[in-house]
């Protein structure tokens, strides 16, 4: 039970199914993996993120006045199942609790490239995955009133990634990498954005005490420059990057259920550039089925 708990949590640490971003719509997170011998898994989450600071192309973070710190909530549901030996598939959907509007939809297929192997200090495993995100959510430009929240990124994407995990008796670590390709989009006559690349790297570690676990993770996010057309004038949107830090506390129930509280903060680590920084909490529940 204890070993399963550690391994299971290594991936929950990566974040809820979709994390709210207080200005620009939620961003698809890493796919949830089956790592404890379960046949499938159901995971639900509720996150709330508050915009704290805006960062320009000069890299200076400008903290907002308290009255300007807009918050956004998002519910997410994720189902992952084993489709054949060493192959898994999953689907992630999200919704705004404020008005019930659907978010982006992600489909993912994962392959266990490195089956569980005894390493010098624990068991090692590695997965590769392909993830497609469909822009079914409401983008910024599709809002009908200022009271609505964006629920999608506004553009579709395809991602290729890998996750490696190591688990010991009472501790675990993970590293992940993902490269995403976003499609282009025209918002209106003379205004649009080209396709672009986005990459993220993450690493984390956790420790287990009985049915409890605490974890910390760091992620590096980078999106490359994009060509934009603004008011009929061609230009370029600058690259952006930030380093979110996540903390989590979890409890494992008997029967394969788990509850987790997460805190994510974009303002702790730099450098940052041309991006919004937020802080948020998420509550995640997951149930494994064997």
């Amino acid at each position, binding site marked *: 039970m204890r070993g399963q708990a550690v391994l299971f949590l290594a991936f929950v640490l990566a974040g809820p199914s979709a994390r709210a971003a207080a*200005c*620009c719509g939620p961003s698809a997170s890493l796919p949830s993996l089956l790592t404890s011998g379960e046949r499938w898994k159901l995971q639900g989450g509720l996150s709330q993120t508050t*915009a704290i*600071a*805006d960062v*320009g*192309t000069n*890299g*200076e*973070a*400008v*903290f*907002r*006045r308290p*009255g*300007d*710190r*807009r918050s956004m909530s998002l519910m997410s549901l994720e189902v992952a199942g084993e489709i054949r030996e060493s192959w898994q598939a999953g689907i992630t959907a999200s919704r705004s609790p404020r008005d019930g509007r659907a978010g982006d939809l992600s489909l993912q297929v994962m392959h266990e490239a490195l089956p569980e192997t005894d390493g010098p*200090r624990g068991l090692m495993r590695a997965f590769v995955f392909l993830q497609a995100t469909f822009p079914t959510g409401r983008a*910024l*430009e599709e*809002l*009908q*009133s*200022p009271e*609505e929240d964006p629920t999608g990124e*506004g553009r579709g994407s395809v991602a290729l990634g890998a996750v490696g995990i190591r688990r010991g008796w009472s*501790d675990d*670590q993970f590293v992940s990498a993902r490269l995403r390709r976003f499609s282009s989009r025209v*918002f*209106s*006559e*003379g*205004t649009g*954005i080209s396709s*672009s690349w986005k990459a993220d790297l993450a*690493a984390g*570690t956790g420790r287990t005490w009985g049915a409890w676990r605490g974890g910390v993770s*760091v992620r590096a996010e980078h999106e490359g420059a*994009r060509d*934009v057309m*603004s*008011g*009929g004038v061609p*230009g370029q*949107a*600058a690259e*952006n990057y930030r*380093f979110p830090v996540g903390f989590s506390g979890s409890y494992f129930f008997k029967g394969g259920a788990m509850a987790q509280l997460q805190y994510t903060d*974009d*303002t*702790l*680590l*730099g*450098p*940052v550039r*041309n*991006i*919004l*920084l937020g802080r948020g909490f998420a509550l995640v529940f997951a149930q494994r089925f064997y």
Partner: protein
Amino acid sequence: MKMRLLMLSLLSTLLACGPSPILQHATAGEPTQRVAEKAETRLHSRWLQGPAVGSESVLVASFTDQNGQVLTLSNLQVELWMPDMGHGSAPVKIEAQADGSYLIKQMYFIMGGTWEVHFRDGDRVLVTLVVNL
């Protein structure tokens, strides 16, 4: 013990990469604005509310040609756009006034930074207002 040292080293490396936003930042100041160059049309504008991040901004705008004649626009459209970020914002609401001006409501600058407000007549951009928040 080795693992803790490894994580501590990793954290130290990350902290050394660049300034932590929470330790080194500015606080939002007063907004500024200017009209973009090469405008074919002159913009006369006054903010009734804002401009501000995170709350509704309201603008009264009127337009004149190079000779100072007030323009009556049959299809005025106003679009908020953040060129550095490559995204816009929610549609605004436009109400034509009896004196030839336009009341532009529900202007929603969702984050701080440099915004462009494009004023169009149909597909033709008349003038662009650059707002720094």
